[in-house]
């Protein structure tokens, strides 16, 4: 069983989740997530080595579509919803690093 979640864990997870949490939020979440995960401990403790996981309730396989191109959305309609756009593109502040 994993150790109780720490403040540092919460801060790390917030970075992974791209949430700029306030100090107060970090504090509160450390307690709340701790309590929820304590409750989840009963699940972690179950012996399930021989039990396969169920990722999905549906037994389907091979749902495929034909390779046919269709017209997409009008660009103006899409860009009208963008917080910022320029030259037919979505504008974002500078990107600090290459994609991981």
């Amino acid at each position, binding site marked *: 069983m994993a150790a109780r979640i720490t403040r540092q864990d919460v801060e790390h997870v917030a970075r992974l989740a791209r949430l700029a949490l306030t100090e107060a939020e970090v504090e509160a979440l450390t307690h709340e997530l701790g309590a929820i995960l304590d409750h989840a401990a009963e699940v972690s403790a179950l012996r399930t080595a021989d039990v396969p996981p169920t990722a999905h309730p549906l037994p389907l*396989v091979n749902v495929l579509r034909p390779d046919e191109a269709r017209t997409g959305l009008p660009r103006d309609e899409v860009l009208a919803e963008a917080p910022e756009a320029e030259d037919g593109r979505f504008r974002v502040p500078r990107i600090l690093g290459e*994609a991981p």
Partner: protein
Amino acid sequence: MKYEIVIGLEVHAELATASKLFCGCANEFGGEPNTNICPVCLGLPGSLPVLNEKAVEYALRVAEAMHLRVPERSVFARKNYFYPDMPKDYQISQYDMPITIDGWLDVDGARVGITRAHLEEDTGKSLHMGGGGRIHDAEYSLIDYNRAGVPLLEIVSEPDIRSPEQAKRYVEELRGALLAIGVSDVKMEEGSMRIDANVSVRPAGSEELGTRCEIKNLNSLRSLVRAIEYEAERQWALVEAGERVVQETRHWDEEGGRTVSGRSKEEAHDYRYFPEPDLVPVAPTDEMRAHVRATMPELPSERRARYVQDWGIREEDARILVDVPGLGAYAETAVAALDGGGTAKDVVNWTRQEVLAYLNESGGSPAELTPEMLAELVGLFAAGKISRSQAKDVLDESLREQKWPRDIVEEQNLSQVSDEEVLAQAIEDVLAANPGFIDEYRAADDKLKKKKQGFVMGQVRDALDGKANMQVLTRLLAQRLVS
């Protein structure tokens, strides 16, 4: 050599489907920005992916070509990380259950293992504004999602490659195969094929693997070779200085000619893969596999072997025919059109010399040429109707003007005189006009004999307006002078 380089490559090839991997948007290169987008590839709330059957078929074709196994079922997974060119902030990829595993590709007689080839979606493209267009110096960026959702096949090799040159050859072989089986147009310059290289070094003779670095997004063969060379030197310098190589992602700086650490100030990467709940597993059926096998085009390696075997040509000539798109098909049609005169080998010789030179110069493709014209030319030459140098000229004109060689030969009155009776008579005419020649000739030393032969040949050639078949003439004259 004091150290050995160990290289594994991850090649991302865009599949040449008509539509994207999970939606019906056109899979096109170079359109106006954000014109091939829909709720799905834009990751709009509520949208759902549906898998393109052609992409699955193409992956199965690659499995056939690379001797990969196709597990009973494969599963898509979400690779979670934030990046603005990725509309959902996760990439639909495959993780622990890829569509194909455990194959190989032969590269110049060495076998390179292929760990897996899996399907995933491409990202959009960013344009960096200000700061010379470089990501790190830019003021802001603009995103175009036309490429987002284009199907990629990520082909991961085992760390079986031992030199930059071999890495290049591996990629060339891979490209040739992907092109031949029609699954990708593998244009590195258009980004439809991109390579990540995992590079490590170890003392020569060691069996242990060193710490590797991943060099991202190499998009030319030249960059691939240079990046690996640089990176290996860099790592070996560290090893020799007693320092540790840090396992990390690095990026190739083309201008600087070096790899630079890709470490950002961000958290260590933790992709939190989990099965994609919006898609169901792919379980290729026997019918799907049989269909792929039945429609599999011939592989480059198979075609090379066939040319060598059937035409008796050299391996390196066969390679040229296979590697230059359309050239093999051109030669095959020409060989089939041979009408008695000349051999497949002749066709190949003319093809890889004159035809290829013409194509290189004109920038045209073999598909634009008429292979039957080459067959006719080979026939004319084999029948001795034209000399080698004439044949060159005729072929050149035939290629340029798309004219039949027989017509050119007639128009220019080039046809050689090969008729032995005509040539023998011409010899007799010269001898008759020069009484005493035979006696003088017989008395002469070898050097003078050569000269006297040359005199007769010149006289005959002039008498026949330069159209005498010199080969036949030489033989006839030699016979006449000894008898």
